[in-house]
């Protein structure tokens, strides 16, 4: 949890505040979030974050050699959740892979 007074996301990205619950790690937590979300929630998340991706990357590049401050790190994790759900919105247009197995069978070691 962010300390008192510390913004949870970098100021420039305060519009993404409602999507803070997608700032998850490790990978498995993001997959679990995807599985637990409705398509309406996933689409809403995508529609807000995808247009900001370029700005997010440009912002984050400044921290690439240092340990990221916590707000930047949360922003980074949100970008990883975006790519986790990318196919659902961009290609499948539904919550599940077509004729696929349960995503949680892909148990990762991270």
């Amino acid at each position, binding site marked *: 949890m962010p300390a008192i007074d510390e913004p949870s996301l970098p100021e420039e990205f305060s519009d993404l505040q409602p999507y803070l619950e997608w700032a998850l790690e490790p*990978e498995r937590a993001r997959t679990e979030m995807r599985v637990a979300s409705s398509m309406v929630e996933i689409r809403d998340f995508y529609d807000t974050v995808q247009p900001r*991706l370029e700005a997010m990357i440009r912002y984050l590049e400044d921290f690439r050699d240092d340990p990221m401050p916590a707000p930047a790190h949360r922003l*980074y994790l949100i970008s*990883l959740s975006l*790519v986790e759900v*990318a196919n659902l919105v961009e290609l499948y247009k539904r919550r599940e892979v*077509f004729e696929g197995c349960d995503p949680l069978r892909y148990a*990762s*070691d991270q």
Partner: protein
Amino acid sequence: MAMKTELREKQWVEKYPDVGTEPLPTEPYLSQERFALERDLVFRRSWINVGRVDEIPGIGDYFVRDIAICKASILVVRGSDGIVRAFHNVCSHRSNTLVLDERGTCPGRLNCHFHNWVYSDTGELLWVPDEENFFDLDKRDHGLTPVNMDIWEGFVFVHLDPEPAQTLQSYLGGVADQLAGCPFDKMPLSQTYRVEERANWKVGLDAQNELYHFPFQHRHVAGDAFRTNDKRQSRYQDLRLYNYHSVWSCEYGESHKLTPIASTLYKFDGILRAFTIPQMIGEMDFFTVFPNFVILLYQLGTSTSYLTYHFWPLAVDRTIWEIRVHFREPLSVRERIRQEYFKCISRDTLQEDTAMHEAVHSGLASRAKPHIILQDNEIAIRHFHKVMEDRIGAGLPT
């Protein structure tokens, strides 16, 4: 870019007429007897990849791999002398499994948890509690049991036969020649998936070992990713059949459309240093290393990387499909997110594959069909089964 892929039909059987064109029997996917032969004549008598040396960079680092079909647990450890060795993960006292975790670092010695016999990280028996109470026990005779091991390009292979018929290098043959010097060590392991599938291990390997299904089964993700002819049928750029192994290579399709996320992630990120692998044949190369190992090299933006697959048979109808994802150290945040994106969209495709492997196995198990039928672009599958038949035929008592 000029296309290197020839689109004509039946070109590969012309190159390799010996593999034949006949249908293949379905019984080898189902028979218990056959499974036992694969265990004794293939898995016990082939070089089996168990991992990479990069997994154990430091003195005392170890990992344990189970070759379940042979009921073997293999301990691979880097000793205090820096040398990597493989042992049966079994205590000399009463055969307890020595190391229980999958990986770790030992402080120069390994203790058995049963009666605390202690071994060095190079395999000698160092200490036996209450040694005086044993009968003529000479510790020098009771070190860990070594397993034949060799390393190729950082890949650790073991051979369960005490006297392997071939060296690893000659076993790998053309694969070793083609990939000699490949910078695998620049692309560290990023993620491992292990999926237990209700299918024979060869069903999954076969399903991966061709490009024919891409425009159909993977139509949503990768339908137009690879080069196809004017009828949208996949064609290989190259195909090579080796002594036991094979590689097929393909080019990416020109019509492949980038999604909004992909366009952002594949945007030029100011990094001019492209990372390419001169050993690659096409833009994606799928090496099948007999019997159960795959090295899949592919281009990804300005970078290149690879996946490995292992198909670990548990029973005739149960398999662990292990997928290892490797990436070079990303040079930008954009590249790092691109790697994650690639992993996620691959994982979606793999979910389609797992469901398909199980559906195919169910169909085979119904025994409705005595044969499977293969086309020219499924020639690597044919080659694999021919190698398998040869190995099993040669090992049978005459």
